[in-house]
């Protein structure tokens, strides 16, 4: 096993856990990277995390954290923080007791433990909750406590199992931003599993898509969404145009999002740095600018055509590169080919900002 300084290296991992099978898992997560594993329910995402944490024996494979082989070690020697979907707070301990749990086991002195608990609570904005019992907290508060508890031990790796799924939409957005902020402040190498593509795009440096206990595609978010490696990935995540940009006001009630120097009209409540996605089937291609109710009409050049049976995926560079869905008949009628100048039209309401 080659030792890489920092991060996580998983090589040839296989495990049978209950009815789940993990097979041929190869995974390299760089130190400080935020890595998202995306997959449907039952793909084995949680058991992958539990296997990395050391809760199950492996059939085969190697796991190295910060260059140290840990596959043979029990969980308590791996220094891997774990946060479960429904938080798994110790119900018999206060919030403070939960956060201090790992510190006490490490025989950290009382004063030092207290200082660390306060520091963690401060970091997550839960200083006022330290004396409370977990069952009196809201979902968002419980999730912050679970994060503080996991981070208090200064783990080499942080594993998050669907950390946002149990939260209501508003809190989810809030905690998602919190996760991004924490990661940028602490730089803890993180693996986050989810079935939610927006979550993945908003947080991930890279994404792995999981299907039936295997990782079927690994790459940067826009790569995965624009060039799905298999039918399954395409169906599960959908082929999407996903961009990062900044939302700004333009006149009354109207907003645009700037992506690679292109302004896209959108309907949204958000402001500032955001992500945007537009479905390929919502984009109309024409050879002349057309007058329509669509707020967006962008000129670009065809840079690729992928034959997918009755339809084509046509990539048009504006920039950015948009993927559009066009029927076989239309490709012929419009004479679409590489290098051809075309216009893309889509409604502001087809632009999803998150």
């Amino acid at each position, binding site marked *: 096993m080659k030792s890489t300084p920092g991060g996580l290296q998983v090589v040839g991992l296989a495990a049978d856990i209950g009815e789940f099978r993990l097979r041929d898992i190869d995974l390299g997560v760089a130190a400080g990277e935020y890595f998202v594993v995306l997959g449907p329910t039952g793909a084995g995402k949680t058991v992958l995390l*539990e296997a990395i944490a*050391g809760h199950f024996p492996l059939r085969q494979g190697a796991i190295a954290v910060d260059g140290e082989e840990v596959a043979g070690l029990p969980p*308590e020697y791996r220094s891997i923080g*774990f946060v479960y979907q429904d938080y798994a707070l*110790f*119900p018999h301990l206060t919030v403070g007791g939960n956060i201090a749990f790992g510190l006490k086991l*490490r025989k950290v002195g009382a004063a030092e433990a207290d200082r660390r608990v306060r520091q963690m609570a401060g970091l997550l904005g839960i200083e006022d909750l330290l004396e409370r019992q977990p069952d009196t907290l809201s979902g968002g508060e419980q999730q912050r406590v679970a994060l503080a*508890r996991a981070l208090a*031990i200064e*783990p080499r790796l942080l594993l998050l199992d669907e950390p946002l799924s149990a939260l209501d939409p508003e809190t989810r957005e809030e905690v998602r931003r919190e996760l991004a902020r924490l990661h940028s402040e602490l730089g803890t190498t993180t693996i986050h599993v989810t079935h939610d593509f927006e979550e993945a795009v908003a947080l991930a440096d890279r994404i792995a898509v999981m299907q039936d206990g295997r990782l079927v595609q690994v790459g940067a978010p826009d790569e995965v969404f624009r060039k799905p490696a298999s039918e399954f990935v395409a169906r599960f995540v959908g082929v999407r145009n996903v961009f990062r940009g900044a939302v700004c006001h333009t006149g009354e009630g109207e907003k645009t999002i700037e992506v690679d120097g292109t302004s896209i009209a959108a309907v949204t409540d958000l402001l500032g740095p955001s992500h945007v996605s537009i479905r390929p089937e919502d984009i109309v291609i024409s050879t002349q600018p057309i007058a329509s109710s669509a707020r967006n009409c962008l000129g670009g050049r065809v840079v690729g055509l992928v034959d997918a049976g009755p339809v084509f995926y046509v990539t048009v560079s504006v920039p950015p590169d948009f993927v559009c869905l066009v029927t076989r008949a239309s490709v012929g009628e419009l004479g679409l080919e590489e290098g051809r100048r075309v216009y893309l039209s889509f409604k502001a309401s087809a632009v999803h900002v998150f």
Partner: protein
Amino acid sequence: MRLLFAALGALLVAFVAWPLLTTVLASSPAVLWETLLDEEVRGSILLTFYASLLATAAAFLCGVPLAYLLARTSFRGKWLVQGLLDVPVVVPHSAAGIALLMVFGRRALVGQAFDLVGVKFVSALPGIIVAMLFVSLSFLVNAARVAFEAVDRRLERVARTLGASPWQSFLRVSLPLAWRGILSGMILMWARGLSEFGAVVILAYHPMVAPVLLYERFESYGLAYARPVAALMILITLGAFAALRVTAGRNRRTG
């Protein structure tokens, strides 16, 4: 429909409450007090408490680890173990007494082995303890198993990732969370041990535990003499059950 159900149910409730109340009320507090001052009665009640407590302690020591295994692991023949533990509840308790005599009796192997170190079972405290243990241990083991099953495994897993060894995870997470369930199992087992007659009487008529004393007074002196002892025992077990309900009730709220 509900009215009819309530009427039928009330019949059963009355059937249970009526004899108990009659027995307790038939003896005036003064008579009860006098009975309690009776050296023989007091001695046998204390002996009953003590023996049942020791039986419960023995079941706690071996039963809680067993309950944890039953709740957390799967192994071949687990169903057999679980079924076996429930058998003492359904076996006639006099049969259980005979069975124990076959093992702990003076001529039996185990009985002889213990005899070498000076421990006798027949007509002695150890005999009372094994009889109580045999017929009531499943109450404790089952209660503890259910309590451990109710502890989310992921709490133990989180504890491990935070640096807890299997022992620390058990002592700091699983046991505290299952504690109320285990405690109510202990009270249940203790109360069940107190009331054991059939198995005890076969291994040890003497020294007399309270149910045996009650039986002897009834046989030798008749109803009037047995009644105050019965009333006392009913009151004591009622007290134990009240304690059980209180802990179980709290368990529901915090659990």
